[in-house]
């Protein structure tokens, strides 16, 4: 169990974190999700011991480690820009932690071989980082972080510098790796899709504070506030409430709870169709329909439609009262 309690950290006039508390369950894959500059990387670096918080404490297994230097925390850390040791070969990069720990030579050799195998770099051991692609470099960084069998693996925007296809591959691969090793893992990302796809728990961080924490489905279905709702998926405004575009009920017949709107545009996006309409008060609204729904409605630009939020007015947006922020498992 990793706990951050009331962590505050400022850089000059900038308050990166304000009284942040988070609990991380052992053996799980947790995402710290939020917009850039929101403080999530700073929180990760505080947990790693690369930053000392101005106040608050970090506890690992109940022990206060706030002022324990990073090198004594038994963590693996993967940096966004790889932080590869440029003057060392792939092999020496991965072996670095073992060399520092004075691991016997045979044992170290075996461990490095295993890890290079694991990250599919077994043929590239003699290469230098400059001779690797971005994805290969990041896999090397991961092998290096895992070499000393750390108790926790921390990843700071690990796939942020990679192109979309490689990012997608590595994502799935990280999830499988985690399922095999069950090492407590925390990764920072600003990509909600990435967080939803691979995390067991998501902690949404914005403006240096925790907005909400919980499993992905819970956050998606019961966001604590409009920020979380907007950050985790597409939203549109209907009748003063924030709703998901695919939750809106569309009909061509009048209904007492429905708002009248005029169709501006229909955009076919393959399986789905996006309906852009304007409400009577001039507000734009977006609705997501399946292709079959769109065909059944048989509407076109300029037609009048009636839009109904998913729930009766009042509980419309699916917002629940804010769960106590800071607990990853409310």
């Amino acid at each position, binding site marked *: 169990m990793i706990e951050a309690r009331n962590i505050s950290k400022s850089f000059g006039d900038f308050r990166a974190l304000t009284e942040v508390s988070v609990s991380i369950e052992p053996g799980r894959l947790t995402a710290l999700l939020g917009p850039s500059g929101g403080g999530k990387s700073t929180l990760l670096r505080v947990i790693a011991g690369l930053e000392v918080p101005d106040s608050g404490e970090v506890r690992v297994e109940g022990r206060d480690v706030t002022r324990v230097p990073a090198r004594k925390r038994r963590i693996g850390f993967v940096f966004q820009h790889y932080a590869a040791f440029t003057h060392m070969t792939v092999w020496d990069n991965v072996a*670095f932690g073992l060399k*520092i720990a004075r691991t016997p030579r045979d044992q170290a050799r075996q461990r490095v071989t295993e890890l290079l195998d694991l990250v599919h770099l077994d043929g590239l051991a003699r290469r230098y980082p400059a001779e690797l692609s971005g994805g290969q470099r990041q896999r090397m960084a991961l092998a290096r972080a895992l070499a000393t069998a750390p108790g926790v693996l921390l990843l700071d925007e690990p796939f942020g510098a990679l192109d979309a296809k490689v990012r997608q591959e590595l994502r799935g691969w990280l999830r499988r790796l985690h399922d095999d090793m069950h090492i407590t893992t925390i990764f920072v990302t600003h990509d909600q899709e990435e967080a939803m796809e691979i995390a067991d728990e998501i902690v949404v961080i914005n403006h240096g504070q925790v907005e909400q924490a919980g499993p992905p489905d819970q956050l998606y279905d019961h966001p604590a506030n409009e920020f979380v709702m907007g950050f985790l998926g597409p939203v549109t405004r209907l009748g003063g409430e924030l709703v998901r575009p695919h939750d809106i009920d569309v009909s061509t017949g009048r209904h007492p709870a429905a708002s009248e709107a005029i169709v501006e545009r229909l955009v076919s996006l393959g399986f789905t169709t996006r309906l852009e309409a304007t409400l009577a008060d001039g507000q734009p609204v977006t609705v997501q329909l399946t292709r079959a729904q769109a065909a059944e409605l048989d509407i076109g630009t300029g037609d009048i439609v009636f839009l109904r939020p998913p729930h009766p007015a009042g509980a419309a947006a699916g917002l629940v009262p804010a769960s106590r922020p800071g607990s990853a498992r409310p």
Partner: protein
Amino acid sequence: MARRLLRYGVLAYLAALLIVPVGMIAYRTFGHGLAPVVDALTSAGALHAAYMSILVCVLAVPLDVVFGVGAGILLARRRMPARWLVNSVIDLPFAMSPVVIGLALFILYGRGGWLGGWLAAHGIQVLFNWPGMVLATAFVCLPFVAREVVPVLEELGTEQEQAASVLGARPLQTLLRITLPAIRWALVYGVVLSAARALGEFGAVTIVSGNIVGQTQTLPLYVDEQFGNFNPTAAYSAGLLLAVIAILILLAMTLLTRKRAREHE
């Protein structure tokens, strides 16, 4: 056409400024054949002067490496209130005449100086002795290593060092295994430039060494003395030796630059 003119112009200018004078030394040196040159260079005075030059160089350059790397890390890594001040102080030896540096050391380490009295009481003779010469030379060559190292450290950033510390490395291990290897080329350049400058140092060393023949005389001082004593063959021979060393150092720099460029491909 204009470009070609410019090219020849530059070459002619370089020739007039550098190649012709050095060539003249070579021509005059060998004016009476090889034997007098060999005699001049193997004379006791010349040999001892060469020995002193090398000794001072070998001791002063490591001092500059330690200072240069330390100052470089401070400048590149720490947010200091008076960063601009430190930055300009490092360049001071570039701007200041070596003679003034020599005078300053003379005052500091002389009999009545702040440090001189105390050191003399403990039996340490700095002035008119090799320690003073090393200090003066180190001072004059101070900026070279720092100036080479700072931009490389800035470009390097701190991520690799952080990665090392997370992997369990202590600060000294990080310095030796990560930081120094990463800046090795800048260090090599700094050392080469410092060594070249140290071998040629005249102004500051003249003052603190006292120019005692056979004791504290370095090659440049020897050249000056022989020249003043109307012994041109000795002066030209030693002068040519210094010039050859400088050219060899430049050549080494060029080769290193090429090797480095290849390594970065």
